[in-house]
């Protein structure tokens, strides 16, 4: 596939839009279906596989308006149904089509606090874009209206024009909310609770804010500027931040209430403990959890080799195990760090890969090789205890099971050797044991995930939880959805407290 330059895409859109604008309010479904889907402008793969700059560059205003005109403004809004935070998608898209970005931003903000982030990292093809009428009619989910790209366009436009508004804060209530973890769930809780006039402190274990948005997702997918901007808004709202603070260790969870006077606590500590394959040789030098590899490169800035004190393993040939977004991020980061060959080893086929489609496509363009229906069996080391090779086995698709899915079946004696010096394991995370170890009264399931009710309340009074620590490894938007629900519960609980105090006072 040849790379279409952003300039070409922009020129094309400028030509097309003239015609559409003249009849914008007369466009029939038939006409809209004929409007060409707009490609996302992207950095040239050759260039970008050596830098950390964002790969997807965002639509031009013409592209955004053309793409927005593809929306049929359905009465039954499948897209809204499939959005975890229920953004009124057709309404914001209609504003874009008419060039009214202020109102488009307003509609998104009613439901989502962090559109610049979600527009970039949400798995739209399995959410809002999965049942889009346009995509269904064209029998191709890739032809659905590019809702995520439009969301991103609006958020970027808002940022670029300096129109990000600081939400209004209600008068101080005197109540204090502690938020543990500054990832997507925590940021949403902080914003929603602060708006109600409560004093909010976010506690972060790392020296930088943003949680997985910062240490996990690389800058080529989500630039740090975007995270910084969102955090600036929270700071301007009066949210306090405490970095280098490990709740559970620096302070016990319950001590935040008993000793420090917080009236409610939200636990959004994220996934945590990386899982390993449990195969021979996994502790050899050169085998990394994706968490470690990405944290070194992203948070610790090891990508900037001449500036950073934190080293990163010098790899020439890398095998990444797994098929999710973290696997894609690791593979693409390894390439950017100078690896000549990068393989993604995945036991199933491309269809089952949980990664965002766009990331898989980008990875392929950057020269990442995908080894489907293959899996790691053993890591082989040299005399110095360093990775020398990876022994893999092949699978084939067997008979469909009861769910209709064809399961991978091991092919006997199919072992083969992959010549690699580095193995990155990206097969998911267990839950972080720190909070539960130090808060025995908190109920967790057998995997260590915190148990909550439908209001995100835990087994301990006044403690709420959400995001990956509850869900297991999930997505940014689901974490935000849980944060939103938890904040509503906390706000209600604190409002009841205030009400009771008033009655008592009288």
């Amino acid at each position: 596939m040849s790379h279409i330059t952003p300039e070409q895409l922009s020129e094309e859109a400028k030509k097309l839009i003239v015609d559409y604008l003249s009849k914008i309010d007369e466009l029939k479904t038939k006409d809209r279906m004929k409007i060409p889907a707009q490609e996302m402008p992207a950095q040239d793969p050759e260039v970008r596989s050596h830098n950390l700059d964002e790969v997807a560059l965002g639509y031009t205003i013409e592209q955004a308006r053309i793409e927005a005109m593809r929306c049929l403004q359905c009465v039954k809004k499948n897209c809204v149904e499939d959005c975890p935070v229920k953004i009124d998608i057709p309404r914001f898209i209609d504003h874009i089509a008419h060039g009214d970005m202020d109102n488009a931003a307003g509609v998104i903000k009613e439901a989502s606090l962090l559109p610049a982030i979600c527009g970039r990292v949400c798995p739209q093809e399995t959410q809002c874009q999965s049942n889009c009428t346009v995509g269904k009619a064209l029998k191709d989910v890739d032809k659905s209206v590019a809702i995520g790209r439009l969301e991103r366009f609006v958020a970027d436009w808002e940022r670029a024009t300096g129109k990000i508004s600081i939400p209004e804060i209600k008068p101080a209530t005197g109540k204090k909310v502690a938020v543990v973890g500054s990832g997507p769930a925590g940021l949403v809780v902080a914003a929603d609770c602060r708006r109600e006039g409560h004093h909010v402190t976010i506690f972060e274990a790392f020296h930088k804010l943003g949680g997985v948005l910062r240490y996990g997702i690389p800058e080529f997918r989500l630039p740090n500027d975007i995270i910084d901007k969102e955090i600036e808004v929270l700071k301007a709202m009066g949210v306090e931040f405490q970095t280098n603070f490990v709740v559970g260790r620096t302070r016990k969870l319950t001590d935040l209430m008993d000793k420090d006077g917080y009236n409610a606590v939200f636990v959004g500590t994220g996934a945590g403990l990386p899982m390993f394959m449990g195969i021979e040789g996994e502790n050899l030098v050169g085998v990394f959890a994706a968490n470690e590899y990405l944290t070194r490169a992203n948070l610790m800035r090891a990508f900037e080799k001449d500036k950073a004190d934190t080293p990163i393993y010098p790899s020439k040939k890398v095998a990444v195990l797994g098929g999710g977004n973290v696997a894609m991020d690791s593979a693409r980061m390894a390439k950017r760090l100078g690896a000549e060959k990068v393989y993604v080893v995945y036991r199933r086929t491309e269809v089952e890969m949980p990664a965002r489609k766009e990331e898989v496509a980008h990875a392929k363009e950057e020269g990442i090789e995908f080894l489907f229906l293959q899996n790691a069996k053993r890591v082989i080391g040299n005399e110095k205890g360093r990775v020398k090779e990876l022994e893999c086995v092949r699978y084939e698709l067997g008979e469909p099971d009861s769910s209709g899915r064809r399961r991978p079946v091991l092919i006997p004696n199919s072992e083969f050797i992959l010549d690699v010096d580095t193995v990155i394991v990206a097969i998911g995370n267990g839950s972080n044991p720190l909070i539960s170890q130090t808060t025995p009264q908190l109920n967790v399931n057998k995997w260590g995930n915190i148990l909550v009710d439908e209001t995100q309340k835990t087994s301990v009074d006044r403690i709420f939880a959400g995001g990956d620590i509850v869900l297991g490894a999930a997505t940014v938007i689901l974490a935000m959805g849980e944060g939103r629900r938890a904040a509503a519960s906390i706000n209600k609980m604190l409002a009841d407290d205030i009400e009771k105090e008033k009655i008592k006072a009288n």
Partner: protein
Amino acid sequence: MSKILFKKQLSNDVYMMRLHAPLIAEERAAGQFIILQINEDYGERIPLTIADADTKEGSITIIFQVVGKTTLQLSEKNVGDEIPALVGPLGKPTHIENFGTVVCVGGGIGVAPLHPIAQALKKAGNHVITIIGARNKELIILEEEMKAIADEFILCTDDGSYGRKGLVTEPLKEICERSPKPNMVIAIGPPIMMKFCSLTTKPYEVFTQVSLNTIMVDGTGMCGGCRVNVGNEVKFVCVDGPEFDGHKVDFDNMMSRLNSYKELEREAHSCFLEQEIKNKEALQ
């Protein structure tokens, strides 16, 4: 931000500092560690054991040896300077009870983390036998402090420049041969010393606890860089440790993992030193 309240050079390349950290001082227990950074943007996160704490002053004591760029930069800081990032206490505290007779073996800089543990064991009523060792007299630290809490005290140097000549494993073996044998051994020091202490006590079946200091990034269980083989299990030093049964730890694997970045670090360290020398020359 954490201010340096006190600084003292203990030996050629070993320093002691007291840092202002009231919350850590209040929560910490023997066996736990902190992670610090000299620079929040590009600095490395390094784990260091908490050697002591003073809740009145709101301070913790760290003792460190200059082994690389970050520890060198730290050693150049002075009283009144700030450490930009300090987080802790991390790791599980040492389990303290009256075990009976406990042999506390400290090698080199390992005496620093051993001191609060020996202190707590003594306080819990144990008969504490202390063996401390180093390559030579110059590298012995905390001799008086360890002596003060020990019921029996043995000091060794490899070169015989002070105390008994030989390795700490020699007196350790003799103590294991006593009747009754000791109830427990705690060995903290360089990996090779902990490995041989564990090998020494194994035939006598004396439970031997070691405290591991592996490569870490976050120190809260997230990165998995600190993993070690313990028996048939993979354990994370930061959340499952830092203390483990020395008879079960795969020290050889741990030592090779500790060397993961040796070449890169050596390079960085020498580049940094060259630059420092140039800077100093430029000033003169």
